């Protein structure tokens, strides 16, 4: 098992406030890794560090064995793609033009691509069922479709690591499952590593191989969904005790909420 992402005693401050405290963990190649935690636990900050845009204030962060700060922006975006929470704005670019923008890291300053750009973009469009929409402008798409286009743009980057920042926040359940299924299929097909910040514990339990539970900037637990989705642990982190049941199809833990159970401190 190769370690693709490795974090060593990572610290991050916003002003005086310490938002991440001595985080150490690693993600293996080909793994679907979830980062979970309540609001303000630091999970979005952690993802920003992983994406290389924000620098840590202490500790080490290595990608493929070399420190992430040693990559140039373009090198990094050939290895690592990010799908953001916010859908791309409805500009009057066509679907194909936006997916093609994902080739930017491979283009020189004249816009020539070092790979087979057209074939790659067309393959992505087919895979995401966007082929028929290729000449439609973003302005005419729904939010869910635009998020699919954003995923297509990330796929055109041909990354070996995909970071997802709560990608299903603005989607209805149909689109949520569609989005996660596409990512999962793509991950299996290309042996890609996925690191996803998720806030839906049930979705996370169904799709993640391993998860990390973050609370107030520190790691509370790392493990499989079966090890982490437990009533007592959830109550300690989220302040509400759920009912944990077994998924009738997959045997994975799923949670049910109950009324009046908020913030009962131990």
């Amino acid at each position: 098992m190769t370690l693709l992402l490795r974090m060593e005693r990572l610290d991050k401050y916003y002003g005086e406030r310490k938002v991440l405290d001595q985080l150490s963990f690693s993600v293996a190649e080909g793994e679907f890794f979830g980062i979970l935690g309540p609001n303000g636990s630091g999970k979005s900050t952690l993802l920003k560090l992983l994406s290389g845009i924000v620098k840590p204030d202490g500790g080490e962060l290595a990608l493929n064995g070399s420190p992430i700060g040693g990559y140039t922006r373009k090198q990094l975006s050939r290895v690592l793609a990010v799908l953001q929470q916010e859908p791309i704005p409805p500009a009057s670019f066509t679907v194909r033009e936006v997916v093609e923008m994902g080739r930017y890291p491979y283009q020189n300053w004249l816009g020539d691509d070092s790979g087979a750009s057209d074939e790659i973009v067309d393959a992505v469009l087919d895979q995401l069922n966007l082929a028929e929409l290729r000449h439609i402008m973003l302005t005419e798409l729904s939010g869910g479709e635009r998020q699919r286009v954003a995923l297509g743009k990330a796929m055109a980057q041909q990354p070996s690591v995909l970071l997802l920042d709560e990608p299903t926040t603005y989607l209805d359940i149909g689109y949520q499952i569609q989005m996660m299924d596409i990512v999962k299929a793509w991950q299996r097909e290309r042996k890609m590593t996925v690191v996803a910040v998720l806030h839906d514990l049930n979705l996370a339990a169904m799709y993640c191989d391993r998860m990390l539970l973050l609370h107030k900037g520190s790691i509370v637990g790392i493990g499989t969904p079966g090890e982490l989705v437990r009533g007592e642990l959830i109550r300690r982190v989220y302040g509400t005790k759920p009912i944990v049941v077994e998924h009738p199809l997959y045997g994975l833990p799923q949670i049910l909420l109950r009324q009046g159970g908020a913030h009962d401190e131990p």
Partner: protein
Amino acid sequence: MSKRLGMWGGVGSVLLLLSIVVSVSMGTAYVPLSDTWPIVLHHVPFLGDLFHADWPISSEQIISKVRLPRVVLAALVGACLSLAGAGFQGALRNPLADPYTLGVASGAAVGAAFLILFGLQLAIAGRWSIPIVAFATGMTSLLIVLRLAGTGGKLQLETVILSGVVVQAFLGSIVSFMVTLSDQVVNEIIYWLMGSLSLRGWSYSGILVPYLLVGLFVLMANGRTLNLISLGERQAEHLGVHVARTRLVVLVVSTLITAAAVSVAGTIGFVGLVVPHLVRLMVGPDYRLIVPVSALLGAVYMIWADTLARMLLSPTEIPLGVITAFLGGPFFVYLLRKHKRRLRM
């Protein structure tokens, strides 16, 4: 993409040539179109030998010495200002930005007017002194405007324009004050505050050409990056774009070409606002097309604005900035309303 660029470039070039020829034939002394064609084309390198000088000398004199230099200068100034407008709009992701509304043009005018009115034109770097100083003061006012408008690293669309207009008004009054201190009051004020292209020889065009070429090159090279930024700064960074660096380069270059245009023609407002917008309606949101087509159509737009300025009340000239404001002001209002509607949705 290169096919579309070729098509729009072709359309723009034909329109530009047509505008030059027709505009040159218009004026107090009548020169028939049948004569202006060969006289203008006579000046084009390589094509010139194909035309025999069978036109009246007087026509040749009027066109080559008086009208053509002015029309060419109008084209260059229009191209510079539109290019700068496209650059500002792209870098700031602000559809209301333009050299005038950002206060950059007035800032450049302060520097240029200072040198000219106190006789320091050649003091620092010979004939490049005015553009260099105009660039420095233009850049300073842009930084002041962005500083005034910034709250916690975020730039609010309308706040940028509000502080731009305030700075522009303040700097405009500095220019007026300086001109008041000098001898030739009336004409010069009109020149600096409202812009003019009258009585400018070929040498002024010569100053502008290198700025225009550099600006066109740098902005076109950044076209793809500006496209990515237009979909959001964060996601552009994730694709490997240095957003801050791109922004700085584009802002500096746009200010530079604004400064060059202002040093030869004074402050002419709203051109950089109107032209890139019309271009965007025609060619779409792709900056690889918007940038070059804006330069071409900006030239056309300015030729006609200047023709109106000299023809409408002939022989009295209307200041060029008055014409562009008549056209651009209502357009600005329209954009503002359109934008507000979109925000409310």
